């Protein structure tokens, strides 16, 4: 157990160093794409804790990204808060609204929860569009170039910041899942009845999951604003939420590795799909349905099967469906 987690840590550090080294030799565009992929990983990690572990569907994960993005950008633009402080503050803002939504939403299940989160997404969209004198409305908002103590942060340095944030997101999520917090998320998903009989407040756990996942999304949104240099409401619409659900379904529900794999693999997709860009929602939805039907526990199950065969030589167990 300890040896396995040490091995995982070594692999993670090796991947991070390799990425950093590779990016140092690359030109601007691939580094930019890598940054966006890692931002997607952060968002997916947060969504997976909510949906894969605590068992709550959300169609407004992109709204929490928007809250982080607009929150941090407005702090920078209006109050001169440096980006490295504004992004965590934006995440706190997203988490607070996550808790606010979670308070009623954690009493809802299934289709009702889906509708409630869709409603929240619409509200955030409308607020951004209607308060145009603050948010820039549908025309969007230009994000100032990030500086530290007056010195412009280079594109490569920005990449390294995203890399560190991504590593922290993965590390903290793994720690949480290995702790009582993650166990209670899983317990509440698998049997709320048994969980409350053991003293677990189902409502509080579900609310905490909403706030926590919103915090990850808030960080992802703040970083995206800085990396892209521009934000507008379209970027954080329902398509983005759907894309994030696809990440975790394709990667593997309830698994941090699944979030990483799903977001990484699918982040490459828009580049591949560039010639048929107008069909991207259709393609994402097809992938989502395909995985739900044929590989409901995602790509990580392939990995588990392969390693199990390799290490033990026994046939892998049949995958168990665990869609929320």
């Amino acid at each position, binding site marked *: 157990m300890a040896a396995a987690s040490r091995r995982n840590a070594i692999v993670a550090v090796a991947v991070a160093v390799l990425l950093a080294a590779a990016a140092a030799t690359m030109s601007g565009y691939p580094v930019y794409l890598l940054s966006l992929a890692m931002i997607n990983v952060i968002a997916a990690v947060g969504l997976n804790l909510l949906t894969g572990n605590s068992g709550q569907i959300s169609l407004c994960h992109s709204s929490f990204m928007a809250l982080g993005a607009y929150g941090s950008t407005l702090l920078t633009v209006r109050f001169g808060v440096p980006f490295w402080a504004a992004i965590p503050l934006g995440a706190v803002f997203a988490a607070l609204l996550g808790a606010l939504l979670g308070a009623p939403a954690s009493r809802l299940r299934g289709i009702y929860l889906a509708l409630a989160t869709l409603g929240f997404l619409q509200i955030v969209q409308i607020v951004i569009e209607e308060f145009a004198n603050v948010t820039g409305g549908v025309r969007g908002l230009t994000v100032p170039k990030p500086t530290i103590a007056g010195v412009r942060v280079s594109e490569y340095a920005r990449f390294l910041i995203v890399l560190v944030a991504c590593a922290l997101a993965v590390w903290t999520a793994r720690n949480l899942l290995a702790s009582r917090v993650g166990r209670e998320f899983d317990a509440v998903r698998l049997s709320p009845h*048994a969980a409350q009989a053991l003293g677990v407040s189902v409502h509080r756990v579900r609310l905490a999951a909403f706030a926590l996942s919103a915090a990850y999304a808030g960080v992802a949104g703040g970083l995206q604003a800085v990396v892209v240099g521009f934000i507008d409401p379209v970027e954080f619409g329902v398509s983005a939420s759907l894309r994030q659900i696809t990440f975790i379904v394709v990667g593997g529900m309830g698994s941090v590795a699944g979030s990483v794999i799903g977001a990484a693999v699918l982040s490459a997709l828009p580049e591949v799909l560039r010639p048929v860009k107008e069909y991207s929602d259709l393609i994402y939805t097809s992938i989502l349905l395909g995985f739900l039907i044929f590989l409901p526990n995602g790509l990580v199950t392939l990995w588990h099967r392969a390693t199990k065969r390799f290490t033990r030589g026994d046939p892998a167990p049949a995958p168990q469906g665990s869609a929320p």
Partner: protein
Amino acid sequence: MTDRLAVEGVTVKFGGLLAVRDFSLRVAPGEIRGLIGPNGAGKTTVINAITGVVPLAAGRVLLDGDSVSGLPAHAISRRGIGRTFQHVEPFGELSVLDNVLVGVGRHAQVPMAHAAMATPLARRREGDAVREAMAALDRFELLTYRDTRAAELPFGVLKRMDLARALAANPKLLLLDEPTAGMSESEADRAIAAARGIAESHDITLLVIEHNMRVMMALAHSVTVMQNGAVIAEGTPAEMQRHRAVIDAYLGEEEAADAAA
């Protein structure tokens, strides 16, 4: 002495149906009380009412003299009322160890920020919790299943896990809903011995629903008999086996004779 559990005039309604009618029960600290009755008598509903899973239409529930009626189920659990389930309700995708760890409440409570960063405090608490859970696995002969997913366990083992998980929460009063259903006779004997041993050594009061009269004779100090949502008799197991109303309502002549033999 204050009763460990006092149920006073509890009524539970499902729509127009009276599932439990004016039900009262007193259990002294350290007592092992049986609750029997035919299917549909309302036994499980009584447990659900005590644990706050279903609302009371009338009456109240006291633990050590303090009312727990109206508290949410998790709060009642934290006050010290634990339960097991007729159909176990396992966390199917979690390992047996993780199932029991959910029950180990006191040690593992840690602020989320500590858990996220795996601080020394978080690791120490987790270590304590794992040690306590492992002791519970040991007591119920579950160590070999430690890393097995609960969904893959045979039913008898699952029932043992349910008991280990409930006891890990360290209740003062434990409600057991058919703890030996689905177990072989020898499994049932061992589970009963373990439950009784723990009840005595940890001063846990038990309220047990059980259909197996042999188990009830071996385990319970006294028995409450229910029919149609109400108490029809109360006394020692031997008295209940001779009680005319109980034989008519529940045991039948043959079973009364069998269990007495």
